[in-house]
């Protein structure tokens, strides 16, 4: 009965007042909901950025390889020798898949058909010269037994070839970098060995060019931390034997120990190869600032490409207030 009266009493409330109350309730509810949503979004974003940083650090462990899109442009022959199309050779080599028994796929960049979608446009120019020179060398008999010594000549044929190839890399951030390959070889007749023909010299030039393109493909394979450290010359015997041991640290991902070792060598005698090794170690540890310091001036376009991406994200994360680890050795 009591309940019935309460209900009746409730139903007896003025309808206008009831509507207002309803509206107020609805607004309050909506407001609370929105507030909760905003707070949730806020915390989610922070968490997302943290995840990004963590994800980035972890991305090297993930199965997603680092790939850049390249547009392979024209390679102009600036010389007069058209015997070999070195531009076409470079194009083929850049497109070539690189396989290894240790990793499945090392295609570091993906060729694209348009300049607009490319991260970098690779182009260049070259000059190739080859020449055959006939040289006469005068001699005189050594013996002094006779009234006069008889003069004679030796004909020396000299084959030579040289290639000057300039690569140009135009990055999507507007910067441009260059790299040059210069290869020169010659062969002369002698009684000791056979002269290399122009064909042989040409083949050797092509091989050298191929090796240069191959070097551009040295980069991290994200799945297995496959890293190619440049070869380093060490004179000290003790350091040399240590170096052999340290090489396996790459597979064990002990980049701190490896980096410390390279740094010790670098302090003794700096070199571009050692700087690159130290850069790679810092990069693997996520200290991109330090890596950039050691990479500075490197002509390897793959490294430049990679570091641009690293530094872009790194700087962005710093801007939004992230505290990123700076591993040292």
């Amino acid at each position, binding site marked *: 009965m009591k309940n019935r009266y309460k209900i009746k009493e409730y139903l007896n409330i003025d309808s206008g007042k009831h509507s207002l109350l309803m509206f107020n309730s609805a607004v309050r509810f909506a407001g609370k909901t929105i507030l909760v949503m905003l707070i949730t979004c806020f915390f989610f974003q922070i968490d997302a950025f943290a995840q990004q940083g963590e994800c980035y650090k972890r991305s090297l462990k993930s199965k997603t390889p680092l790939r850049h899109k390249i547009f392979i442009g024209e390679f102009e022959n600036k010389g007069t020798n058209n015997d070999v199309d070195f531009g076409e050779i470079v194009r083929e080599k850049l497109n070539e898949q690189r396989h290894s028994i240790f990793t499945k796929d090392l295609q570091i960049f993906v060729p694209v058909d348009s300049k607009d979608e490319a991260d970098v446009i690779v182009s260049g120019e070259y000059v190739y010269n080859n020449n055959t020179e006939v040289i006469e060398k005068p001699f005189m008999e050594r013996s002094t037994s006779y*009234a006069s010594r008889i003069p004679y000549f030796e004909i020396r044929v000299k084959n030579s070839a040289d290639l000057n190839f300039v690569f140009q890399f135009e990055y999507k951030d507007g910067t441009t970098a260059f790299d040059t390959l210069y290869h020169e070889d010659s062969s002369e007749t002698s009684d000791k060995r056979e002269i290399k023909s122009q064909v042989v010299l040409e083949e050797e030039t092509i091989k050298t060019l191929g090796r240069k393109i191959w070097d551009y493909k040295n980069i991290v394979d994200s799945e297995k931390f496959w890293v190619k450290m440049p070869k380093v010359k060490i004179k000290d015997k003790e350091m040399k034997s240590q170096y052999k041991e340290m090489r396996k640290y790459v597979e064990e991902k002990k980049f701190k120990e490896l980096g410390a070792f390279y740094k010790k060598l670098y302090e003794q005698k700096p070199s571009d190869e050692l700087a690159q090794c130290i850069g790679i170690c810092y990069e693997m540890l996520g200290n991109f600032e330090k890596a950039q310091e050691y990479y500075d001036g490197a002509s390897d376009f793959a490294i430049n490409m990679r570091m641009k991406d690293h530094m872009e994200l790194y700087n962005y994360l710093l801007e939004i207030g992230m505290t990123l680890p700076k591993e040292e050795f």
Partner: protein
Amino acid sequence: MLRLISFLLITFIVCVSSQAQLSTIHTSERDILSKDYTKFILVNEATGYALGKEPVKFVPGGDMPEIYFTVDLPANAASLATGAPRDLVIHSTEVPSEDWVLENNRNQGDIFFGRGRFVVNSIDKQWKVQVMDDVVIFQSKYDNNYLEIDQQGDLKRTSSMPEAARWKLYYVY
């Protein structure tokens, strides 16, 4: 120690280099037996011909007739004394089975490459060598005429030294 090694190395290299120069242009008796001839291409720059059984126009790097020299014994024994003029016998290697020798043939009155095997001390096969700067001329020991070659590649004799053919010797490895 390092300096000593460097010095010895340089000396060794110099010595080896100098050994590349021929002692004499003629082939020794011992080398003839082993057929290790010291061969040359003789080129007359005025006509462009290379001397051989069949003279041909000279092409560097091409297949050219080759010549080797010997000193005929025993008549030339005197010429082996120090400071003596040298008389050479000029051989062609074009036909390996035969020994073709340049002769100023007294019977035929002509100069050509004739068979020389088992023929020694034949004065019409001996040639005196005279050096003119970086070329040589050949004078027949038989009649003192000089070897000449015309624009058609035919070998002739001339009594005039200015008309004698100047021969440039190119050593063949």
